[in-house]
């Protein structure tokens, strides 16, 4: 199989977003291929969250286009789709794992219903089957199945994040956006979550775009990395190459600050 035979899942062309006069992100270009994990790193205000929100159609950017290749092989500009189409993508073909579980979960309905919601949205109307699928997914994300009827507010932070992942993956999405999914978790809890994500990515062949300020997370999860500063992508490439042989001053600073903490 030659390299040009498989086509990008997502193709980002000259994406820019301004909040009035204020720059969100500018001239972003990249392709994401099926099964690839891309990390977007940078500090707060670098534009990485703006970019993620544009890609996931939470924000319609000021300029540029993003082409998404659907399951039928057609490639459509996300921003020319109707809002209904965008929202269908978001709850079927895509997932979005938020930093704060309260933004990605319904905290007052049971874990089972949280996982089952997307199925019900797609028209599943068999309680028994929905519940079986939910049980299956709780097991996959290492949540004890006897917690299925408990509300996520009774879960630990790590469990809540794992539940968010189950809730998103239940429709077998092809692309999952993650916004600092390990932020705010203890180190050991983080390690378990990262491990789980790695396993699921390998098993399901997911494409992931993950925003993080934690280079260790980027190194563990991603194939490719984009470093953002002041709204622009200043360096991108193979994750281990960018982290081990950074060329830009800012990337070197980022990497060296990690090293100092580590040693």
């Amino acid at each position: 199989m030659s390299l040009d035979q498989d086509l990008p899942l997502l193709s980002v062309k000259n994406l820019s977003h301004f909040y009035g006069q204020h720059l969100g992100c500018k001239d972003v270009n990249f392709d994401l291929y099926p099964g690839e994990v891309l990390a977007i790193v940078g500090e707060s205000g670098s534009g990485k969250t703006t970019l993620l929100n544009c890609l996931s159609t939470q924000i319609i950017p000021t300029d540029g286009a993003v082409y998404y290749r659907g399951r039928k092989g057609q490639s459509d500009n996300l921003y020319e789709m109707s809002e209904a189409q965008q929202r269908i993508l978001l709850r079927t073909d895509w997932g979005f794992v938020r930093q704060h579980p309260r933004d990605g979960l319904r905290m007052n309905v049971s874990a089972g219903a949280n996982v089952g919601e997307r199925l019900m949205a797609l028209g599943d109307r068999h309680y028994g089957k929905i519940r079986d699928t939910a049980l299956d997914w709780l097991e996959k994300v290492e949540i004890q199945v006897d917690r299925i009827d408990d509300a996520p507010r009774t879960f630990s932070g790590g469990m809540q994040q794992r539940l968010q992942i189950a809730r998103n993956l239940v429709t077998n999405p092809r692309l999952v956006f993650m916004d600092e999914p390990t932020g705010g978790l203890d180190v050991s809890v983080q390690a378990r979550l990262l491990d789980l994500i790695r396993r699921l990515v390998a098993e399901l062949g997911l494409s992931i775009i993950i925003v993080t300020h934690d280079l260790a997370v980027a190194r563990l999860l991603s194939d490719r990395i984009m470093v953002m500063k002041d709204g622009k992508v200043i360096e991108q490439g193979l994750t281990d190459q960018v982290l081990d042989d950074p060329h830009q001053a800012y990337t070197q600073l980022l990497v060296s600050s990690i090293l100092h903490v580590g040693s």
Partner: protein
Amino acid sequence: MQQKILSVQNLTKSFVMHLQNGLQLPVMDGAGFEVFAGECVVLGGPSGAGKSTLLKMIYGNYAADAGEIIITHGDQHTDLVTASPREILRLRQSTIGYVSQFLSAIPRVSALDLVAQVARQWGHSEEVAQEKAAKMLGQLNIPEHLWGLPPATFSGGEQQRVNIARGFMGEHKLLLLDEPTASLDAANRQVVLSLIEERKANGTAMLGIFHDADTRDKVADRVIDVTKFAVQRAA
């Protein structure tokens, strides 16, 4: 004449240390050599001469400034210096293996599965993969009662040997050996030497760094002195 697997030409590399007022650190200029199928080439020279930098560039871990690193895979030739991240990742899966004692991440997977995973990636059935993994772990003297446990719980030496097992489990045409024998005891060093011999016989091209002169003499078909590629630094 064996097939040429790796061809390095006019390879140039310097580091720019932005955090030290943009200090330029040229390390390599005009490196050029070739490695053929079925031979083990060892990079020689004192430490700091750039052996490790060279090996990392050939794995795509460091970016070269200029020159070519042509990898032959099947009937195709890819220049790693200009290849996209995606092409490099594919080459790492299909053609370029890296044998090191260090693994950046240790998942919660048993040692046996960790090694068998590699065999599976190379198309072996679950059964065969498990068999091959067991044989490899046995050869490297990992006690059988540890096989079912994740290596995170192992001693440093045992972890190193699991990583070596993973490195040799692949069937890459080009193997980069990053001091695989350092700090191994005599018995295990001997095992690694025989693994290298085996691969050589299979037609694998190998390029390695071995600090121990005795080991180097045993495995090396040729030694390339990297000091001739090194940039002469102003005193």
